[in-house]
């Protein structure tokens, strides 16, 4: 759990569990942690920092390193650059701890430990193994400065060569360069325009040309792309991005162009060329082997790829997250026993319950959520339904099995109770099969339990 200033003041601390925090501050407002959103924010901030230098490195969870070598003078010097950055971040409601140093490691350490000079840094900045750090503390060497003044071979003899190396990285004797955020894609094609393109169609045509070039490169590599990023750089500095992912590796320009067009067609806010695009870049960051393919004579074996193509198209049009599949969940409560996941999500749920061979299915094919209220004639206390009325039609029950008794999840309810359900599989005089339940045990839980239709068997 992470906390804001107000929560901190209420005695909550990062790392606490939600149940604990709720126990202490019942009126607590909690948002589930969304690491993806955090990462996206950090990337977005990094994008914004491109204005200072192309050498921007995101250091999750909350660090950014800018290599401003040779750039600072453009902003009136190092201090002015830092001021500008901090002010901009503050405008976004973010608190920043800036630090300037000769190497990325040193800058990060200074920022994290809020120190002014390397020598004052606590040894924790070395991020040593627990035992080594304790040994240094026991020796009274509490700051980097004190450690650095030791005889290096003496340190190496005790803590291994890693320690002098770490010290050297912090002090700047060894500089590890900033790694740019986007590693060069295996396949990357771009086109610059002397006169910025102000028409969307012109931009699309340019993208299509890039797709064809990329397709050729991929063919040479005997690969297909799983992801295609298009970056449209506007002359005013804004960067528009289009991303298409596919279930199977693809390099056929026709397929790609169709996917890209569908993607563009489905965009919530259409591409705005504004003052025009002066650079369009197509990157294929994820590739997979794809041999030249031949239709098999028997046919039909391409069904999988056709399903894949359908998923790709639906995904491109509707958004990938909206093409879903059902996954089993571990719960007795029928409506909680399955949930939907985006199709691409590899997460596996619990095992599906399969009726034993020769046994009828215990769960219906169609499940109503919420269950539909019905009127039922049944024996008390817990007799099966004899006749029920659903959607203004009366059904006479001719066969039934049950009850299957499923009690409430008491721990989810403030009163710790909840009603028990008695499920019956029933068949009416027309041979239709229904899944009904009585909500509440007669007498002990409810004087007059209600009935619901929860599903239909095929």
């Amino acid at each position, binding site marked *: 759990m992470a906390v804001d200033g107000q929560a901190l003041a209420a005695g909550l601390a990062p790392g*606490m569990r939600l149940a604990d925090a709720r126990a202490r501050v019942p009126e607590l407002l909690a948002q589930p942690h969304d690491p993806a959103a955090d990462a996206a924010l950090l990337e977005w901030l990094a994008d914004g920092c491109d204005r200072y230098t192309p050498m921007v490195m995101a250091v999750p969870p909350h660090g950014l390193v800018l290599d401003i070598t040779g750039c600072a003078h453009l902003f009136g010097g190092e201090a002015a650059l830092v001021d500008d950055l901090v002010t901009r971040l503050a405008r976004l409601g973010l608190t920043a701890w800036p630090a300037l140093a000769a190497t990325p490691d040193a800058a990060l350490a200074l920022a994290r430990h809020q120190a002014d000079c390397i020598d004052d840094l606590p040894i924790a900045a070395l991020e040593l193994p627990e035992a080594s750090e304790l040994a240094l503390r026991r020796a009274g060497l509490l700051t980097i400065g004190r450690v650095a003044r030791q005889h290096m071979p003496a340190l190496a003899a005790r803590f291994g060569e890693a320690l002098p190396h770490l010290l050297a990285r912090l002090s700047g004797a060894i500089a590890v360069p900033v790694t740019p955020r986007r590693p060069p894609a295996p396949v990357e094609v771009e086109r610059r325009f002397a006169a910025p393109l102000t028409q969307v169609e012109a931009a699309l045509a340019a993208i299509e040309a890039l797709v064809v070039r990329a397709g050729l490169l991929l063919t040479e590599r005997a690969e297909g792309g799983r992801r295609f990023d298009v970056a449209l750089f506007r002359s005013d500095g804004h960067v528009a991005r289009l991303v298409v992912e596919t279930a199977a590796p693809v390099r056929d320009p026709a397929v790609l162009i169709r996917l890209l067009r569908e993607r563009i067609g489905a965009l919530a806010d259409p591409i705005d060329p504004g003052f025009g695009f002066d650079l369009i870049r197509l990157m294929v960051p994820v590739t997979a082997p794809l041999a030249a393919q031949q239709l098999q004579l028997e046919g039909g074996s391409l069904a999988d790829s056709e399903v894949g193509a359908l998923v790709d198209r639906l995904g491109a049009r509707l958004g990938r997250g909206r093409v879903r599949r059902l996954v089993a969940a571990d719960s007795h409560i029928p409506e909680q026993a399955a949930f939907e996941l985006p199709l691409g999500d590899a997460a596996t749920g619990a095992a599906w319950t399969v009726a034993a061979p020769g046994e009828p299915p215990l769960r219906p094919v169609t499940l109503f959520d919420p269950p539909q209220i019905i009127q039922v004639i049944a024996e008390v206390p817990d007799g099966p339904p004899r006749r029920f009325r659903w959607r203004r039609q009366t059904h006479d029950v001719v066969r039934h099995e049950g009850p299957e008794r499923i009690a409430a999840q008491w721990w989810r309810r403030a009163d710790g109770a909840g009603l028990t359900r008695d499920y019956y599989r029933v068949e009416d005089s027309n041979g239709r099969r229904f899944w009904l339940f009585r909500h509440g045990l007669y007498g002990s839980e409810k004087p007059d339990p209600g009935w619901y239709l929860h599903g239909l068997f095929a």
Partner: protein
Amino acid sequence: MTGFAELAAATHFSFLRGASSPGNMVRRAVELGHHGIGIADRNTVAGVVQAHVALRELKEEQPDLRFKLAVGARLVFADGTPDIIAYPATRRGWGRLTRLLTLGNRRAEKGDCTLGFDDLAGLHDDLLLILMPPPTGPVPRLADLAALAPRRCWLAADMPRGGADRRRLARLATLAQAQGVPLLAVNAPLYAAPEQRRLHDILTCIAQKTVLAEAGRRLLANAERHLKAGAEMARLFAGQDAALHASRTILDRIDFSLDQLRYEYPHEPIPPGHSPQGWLETLTLQTARKRWPEGLPPKLQALLVEEFRIIAKAGYAPYFLTVHDIVQFAQGRGILCQGRGSAANSAVCYVLGITAVDPAKHNLLFSRFISEERKEPPDIDVDFEHERREEVMQYIYARYGRDRAAIAATVIHYRPRSAVREVGKVLGLSEDVTTRLTSTVWGSFASHMEQQRITESGFDPQAPEIARLADLVGQIMGFPRHLSQHVGGFVLTQDRLDETVPIHNAAMPDRTFIEWDKDDIDALGLMKVDVLALGMLSCIRKAFALVETHIGRQLTLDNIPDTDTAVFDMLCRGDSIGVFQVESRAQMNMLPRLRPREFYDLVIQVAIVRPGPIQGDMVHPYLRRRQGRERVEFPSPAPPHDPDELRHVLGKTLGVPLFQEQAMKLAITAANFTPSESNQLRRAMATFRNIGTMQHFEAKMVGGMVARGYDADFAQRCFNQIKGFGSYGFPESHAIAFARLVWVSSWLKHHYPAIFAAALLNSQPMGFYAPAQIVRDARDHGIAVRPVDINFSGWDNSIEGEALRLGLRQITGFREAWADAIITARPFDSVETLARHAGLPPRALRLLADADACGSLGLDRRSAAWEALRTPVGELPLFAAASARELGAEPDADLPLLTPGEQVAADYQTIRLSLKGHPMALLRGHFAGAGVLSCGEAAIARNGRRVAVAGVVLIRQRPGKGNAIFVTIEDESGVANIVIWARLFDIFRRPIMAARLMQIEGEVQRSPEGVVHIMASRIIDRSALLDRLSDTHDANPPLARADEDLQQPSRYPGGRARHPRDVRILPKSRDFH
């Protein structure tokens, strides 16, 4: 009569599966009008005695109750066989069942039982077997079982409301018919009533190591697995009447009850050709002739004759012989031992050397030990040196064999701490919260979690999460978690023990224990011998050995002079740290008041500082009479009775009843109780259950005394005093046995203080105080104490001339083998030679350096640790011969010097004491500025003065009814005793319980004897100051020995995160409750 009985009932002895106690199940079945119940837990019969006792009590209340209890076990197999419930039809069948379970237990890891169908096939006779089919699918082994036990097996069928129940029932019926096996209707309940489903879900999660939110289908879908009424069962099994009535058939065929278990003493100690009684008498008289060559004192002789008669009548001779046999073995090995408790009432035990107390000399009452009417086996408890008791235990196993001797079980129950921790985890609360919740529970033996405690730990008891936790914790409290072995209660039999009760492997190697605990054994009338461990006996033997080595004087328990004014003077000063029993704060405060001048005063001293006499308000009358401030008087009965009859009973204790025996004798003498009635009185006092019984005795005793001519008011007072005893009073015999060790240890402390301190340190853990107090006390007595040093220290603490040298054993985590290597390889001139020659691993080097044990190398702990860091591990073969220094010279590391605070904190962390200073001395500046007195200054402050003191907490104690809490704090000048009234305790509970460094404001109260207390009015937790002493070492104030039962509350969450090793709580204060 509904004609139904549930024969597949599980209890909470099906650990983490059943959610009701055996008694609960039996009572519920009786309430429902069932005609019986079958208790069958998973591979165990641990719960059947409780069920048996519950039914016995119900039948006492309802004499015409017709209800049959079947006891058995649910056999769970490891080879795919479905569970089979086995009920012995006969005593022989019981033996088969217990042997079968023993077989599975002994084969498996501790706590498990591995059985196969073949095992059952080998031991199935006289067992009625019920096959429990799996929930779905085919039923394996049915045909095998039908062939194995024709007409003795049934197929169980249940209706769990699973949806397809009727279809399944029909299939099982067909299957049963095809095999010719009758069907039995069961519900296989896991709890008595449906409301217990929640608790059962919790238990399931604990067992599955999961939390409720994630348990899913591992929980049962509904609450149907409870005991159901006969009518409900009949409705469920409509059309299967035979299955419903099968329970009756099974119960009718069972001709076994636990009452049939008969006990036979082992025959080993009796030579062939002798009867047990004859041999006991022969042996006793032979020994007597040896010990009293000039003839047995006539009074003792008379006692022996009387005891022989009673022992013969009850047939207990083999028991005495068995205990004698064990004691003789120990004495032959030079292991100090001594009988304790009521056995010291017996002249036979005295003559045989089992006890050291002469009952003739002290007018002790044999009927306190064995009464003619009482059908309970006697109970002889013998203490052995705690470090050598294992030898005695292994002797017992060797002599009687593992199939005839085993230790009794102890049932480990859920206590507030464990319950809150485990239930809280299942509910999704973190350890952090549960630790805080339990941090204000006094002791781990509290029986319930009070709502107030929740508020005190800063939580809202109305918050749903917390309320739910409190409710479930209340339900789970007292549930068994697992079986463990009893500390030393042995059960020995002549026949195979495993035909009476299943035997388990214990966690300790070479130990086996049975499934029943002390109460079960008592309830069934089996005999047990308590082989107990006493640290003081180890200490005394070690002191004797040191005296022999260094002084050349041979001491034994019997040749210590029995009077010595200087020793009594020492005790009168309250100078008793380390002395057996009288070293607690309460005892220390009593010593100057009671002023013991002879041995019997020590007996009283031991007995008087007990909850019984304190609650019976006998302490002050006794002290007043002893100090001559109140006339000693003995009310007389009306003629013709002996006017001095009370003088005979209460003369030794100045007319105030202090011992259990006196209460009993008072009842006999002054109220005409028979000895057996007075014994019933004692038992009624000990158990609070039968309040009605106590009233009956009250009427009888007061009436009896008034009839004899005593003043009614006096009679009532006597009775009230006796009532106050409860189970807390000491029998006089026990007090005498303990007083003997008090005397021996006092004598050693006075005459050989350095040796006594070394022996105490070498026998740790034992006693009341931590090494820090023992060492401090030694230094206060002028003993020079020298630090641990690699060139001088042995493993044990030793004597160097007049001085005490601390041993390597004081270093937490050090090993004896390392110490041996060091002693062989010394002297050392560098850390490198230490590492090389002694072949020490890096961990040992680090411990030595951190413990500042390299002083003789001229290295302080920081330099030594720095040096140890670069020392290579072990000896390189190439250089083994050369043994030359391999490590090159290094420039001076110029490490920062340790501050005194760091030194002291490091000392406490590594050896739990510091010879360099007291943490409080380092903080004195802080406190002096705030007007806080030292303990020494407070001790001489004027009576009634308001003062503030501060110190590290040594002991927290909440005795008896808990009206007051006693806290002892220590600083560099001494100790101060704080009294906190319960009213204040409610306000300051957290600081009182959690503070390691406590500041107290209060009023000085000085007793006429000079005992000073500070009556607290305000308590402040100053523990945070301790953390300031050192950044690198935890200065948890260390000072008294940890009470294993009481965990110190963890630090307040949100503090600096530390590595577990660093955070380890150092020796804590010792808390009693």
